[in-house]
Structures are given as C-alpha cells and as structure tokens.
C-alpha cells in the first residue's frame, strides 16, 4: 500500500481571511474510499481544493502522490493534475464542446491520439449510460446527465486519485446511483483512491470506506 495523501497539521486560509482549516492531519492510502463530511462552510471544499493545488496551504505539510503541495505551481502542478480526476459540484463542463469531447479532455491534455481518446470516451459514456448523447452539448443535458459526464471525464485517464466535491448534491436518485456505482467500481476494480466531500454518506453505498468529519476547522476520523 502506498500513501497517496499525507497531511500533517495542514492549515488552509483564503487571502486576508482567518484559516478555514486549522488542523487537518490524515494519511490516505492507495485504494481507499474516503468520505469527508461536515456542515456547510466547514471547509470541506477548501480541503479538496488544496488536494488538487487550487489553494496553497497556509501551514503544515501536505503531500499528494508523493509531491509536496507547498507552493506548487506551473508545470509541476500541471503534471500532478494530469493524474488526478476531479468531479465538481457545478460540473465544470466546457459548454462549447460536445459531451464526447468533454470526456476526452484529460486524454487530449495527456496527448493521446484522437482514436484512443474517442474509444475511451465512448466506453465511459456507455458506463454512465449516455453514449446515445455523445454529440449533445452540456446545456442540452439535465443536471444529472451533466454530472454523469463529469464523472466519466474524471475517470477517462485512469487517475490514481479521484476528488469529488458534492458529486450528487443536486441529482435525482437515478443519476446519484449511476455516479456512486461508477466511483465504487473505479475504486474496487482499478484500486483508484477516492476522496468525496459530501453532506451525507449515501445509504445505497456498499463498499468499505473511511469517514472523516470537519468540525471547527479540525479534521476528525469517525471510522
């Protein structure tokens, strides 16, 4: 087992603001499925942002995939991000691209040939049951469908780590089920480490998981 995330007394703060996270200490290993819960504004999304380098840490030590996240930037950060899959609450799909190209995005960035990208996108769109809408554009899809595309995109390049920020926050039951099944499958079959930030752990979720909670800026292990 390899340590994918090592956080030691990590502090996170937005510029000119008090720290949102005062102490986050944890170790996440390969193949673990981790839920991070907490009240609104507790810093769950902030913690996630620090894991893909969108927010610099204000204190402590943070290593992701063996890379020190302290003042990481430029090509080093890009390189790390090419091995991480992120699912955002607001999907972050490129509106002027069809959904097939959206799913292909991490593969295009990684420099794969077009045929490889298309084949992988088709396979993942099949998994999320959207292959019949491959040439549609994001605004033509429902919220649930868009989030399924976002999950497919996050999995496209077989990342070692998937970070998901409230992936089923606004979704209907069917879409939520598809999203959880896909994340579970990636975790079980590919040993992909998954960190999900959410308000509630879904009842339909069957896999083994760790549960962490943020309260008053401190990260606690529940089980």
């Amino acid at each position, binding site marked *: 087992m390899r340590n994918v995330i090592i956080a030691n007394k990590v502090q996170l703060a*937005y510029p000119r603001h008090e720290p949102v996270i005062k102490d986050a200490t944890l170790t996440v290993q390969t193949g673990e499925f981790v839920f991070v819960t907490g009240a609104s504004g507790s810093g769950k999304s902030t913690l996630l*942002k620090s894991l*893909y380098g*969108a*927010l610099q840490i204000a204190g402590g030590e943070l290593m992701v995939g063996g890379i020190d996240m302290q003042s990481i930037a430029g*090509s080093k*950060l*890009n*390189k*790390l*991000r*090419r*091995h*991480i899959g*992120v699912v955002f609450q607001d999907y*972050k*799909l*490129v*509106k*002027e*691209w069809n959904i097939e190209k959206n799913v292909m*995005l*991490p593969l295009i*960035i990684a420099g794969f040939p077009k045929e490889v990208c298309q084949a992988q996108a088709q396979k993942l769109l099949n998994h999320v049951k959207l292959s019949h809408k491959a040439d549609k554009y994001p605004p033509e899809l429902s919220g649930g469908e868009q989030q399924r595309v976002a999950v497919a995109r996050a999995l496209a390049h077989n990342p070692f780590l998937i970070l998901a920020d409230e992936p089923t926050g606004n979704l209907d039951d069917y879409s939520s089920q598809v999203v959880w099944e896909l994340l579970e499958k990636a975790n079980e079959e590919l040993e992909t480490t998954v960190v999900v930030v959410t308000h509630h752990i879904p009842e339909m979720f069957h896999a083994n998981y760790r549960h962490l909670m943020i309260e008053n800026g401190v990260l606690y292990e529940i089980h």
Partner: protein
Amino acid sequence: MKSIKNHLALILPLFAILFAVEYLQILDRVVKMYEERLKAEYTIIVVTEKSVKPEAVQQVSPLIDKVELVDANQVLMRIRQQIGQESLAKLQSVMPLFYTITLHRYPDQKSLESLRKSLMALQGVKRVQMFEKVHHPLYSMLMFLKANVTIFALFFGIVGFLLIIKQMYVWQLEHQERMQIMALFGAPVWLRSGVLFRFAIVDALIALAMMAGLIFYLQRDHRVVAFLSDMNIDVAQLVIPKDFAQLAGVALGTALLCAFWVVARFKEES
C-alpha cells in the same frame, strides 16, 4: 458579425503598426537616396597658398573620399580673353591653389563644421568653402520629417500594442471558462491558451496580406510613381522583397508577444 468586429480590432492596429514600420523604412531610404545624391554632387573647395599633398588632406577626416587639385589653367582660360597677357601672368603668379574634396557621405552640420576647422588647421590653407547653405535646408527638412515620422511611428506602435492587448484580454475573457477547466485538468499554458495564439497568428497574416496589398497598389499607382520620379526616385528601389520578411516578423512577433503578455497574466480562480 461580432466575431469579424473582434478580429478587426486586432487586425487594424496591427496593420497601422506595419504601415508605420514600412513608411519609416521608405522614408529612411528616401533620405539615404538624397544623401547619395548630395554626396555625388557635393564638393568642398580648399584654397591654399602652397601646394599640399592630397594624402595629407585625406588624413584630416575619415569622411574625405577624394582630394583633387583643380587645374588653374582651366580657370584662367575662361578669363584670358577679358584681360591682357601681362595681367594674366601677374594673376597666375599670385593665384592660390584650389583643391576639390569629395566625401564618402553627406554629413550633418556639426560634422561639416568640425571638418572645416580641421581643414583650416592644415598648414597653408587659406580658406575652406563648404557650400552647405545650398544643400543643407532640404536635407534638414528631410531629417526633420524623418524625426517626426519616427515619433508618430512610435506613438502608433504603443497605441497599436495596447489595442491588441485589449483585444486579447477580450478573447481571453470569452474563453476564460474553458481555459480554467483545462487548467484544472493540468493543461499546459500553450494548450489552454491555444485559441489566443491561433487568433494572433491568423490575424497577423491577414494584416500582413493587407499591407502587401497596399504596397502592391501604391507601387503601381501612377500618382505615386509620378511624384517619386519628380524627385528622381525609382519606386522599385523603395520597397524591396526583404521588407516583406521584416513585416512578417513584426506582425507575427507583435501579435504573439501580446498573446504571451495576456497569457502570462492569466490567473486561475481558486
């Protein structure tokens, strides 16, 4: 329609910059051609009491190309019929020596003055006649025009550069969402900002084609040709093929520099 307007917002300032660069080059060539003509037609007369070695005069300044003694007999031949033989002999005995000096290039007023002083310092030199008042006003006017055009070209360049950067920012804003998403998945700068570089290259080529078209038209416009031939300037000598390579460099260089400028200031939202 909006897209065409956006492209014109980059193409026109770039075209203005290219026009300024080419105009400056052409004016520079006109001044150089005039300098050549001045140089060919311009001579300095040095009057000496005794014979001096042309090499000694030549050493006075690197500006001096040739020093020649004027044949006194040729001068006296002209007045032989108007004065008597005795007077002619007397005149011949007291007549100084005249040397003509031609220069490598036509210098500015300061250099001419310095040359006059150096020549006057030579032993035996009585007088130096520069004739600068005949040539200098037109030359000064051309230099003044060149200085003014340079200032305007600089102004065009700065304003054009700012307008191009502004348009790049507009495009960046239009494509910001996609760029941000690509950045989150680790796309390198050149890939996520590819659209700006593509627009920069395409619009630079369009501006260059427009400039080439304008030059092609002006070279064949009978009014322009007639105006230049009045000044004894051959239009074919004013625009040379090398200019197009230079203009291509300026167009692509400016557009890409502006694109890099904007891309370098891209901030990822957190």
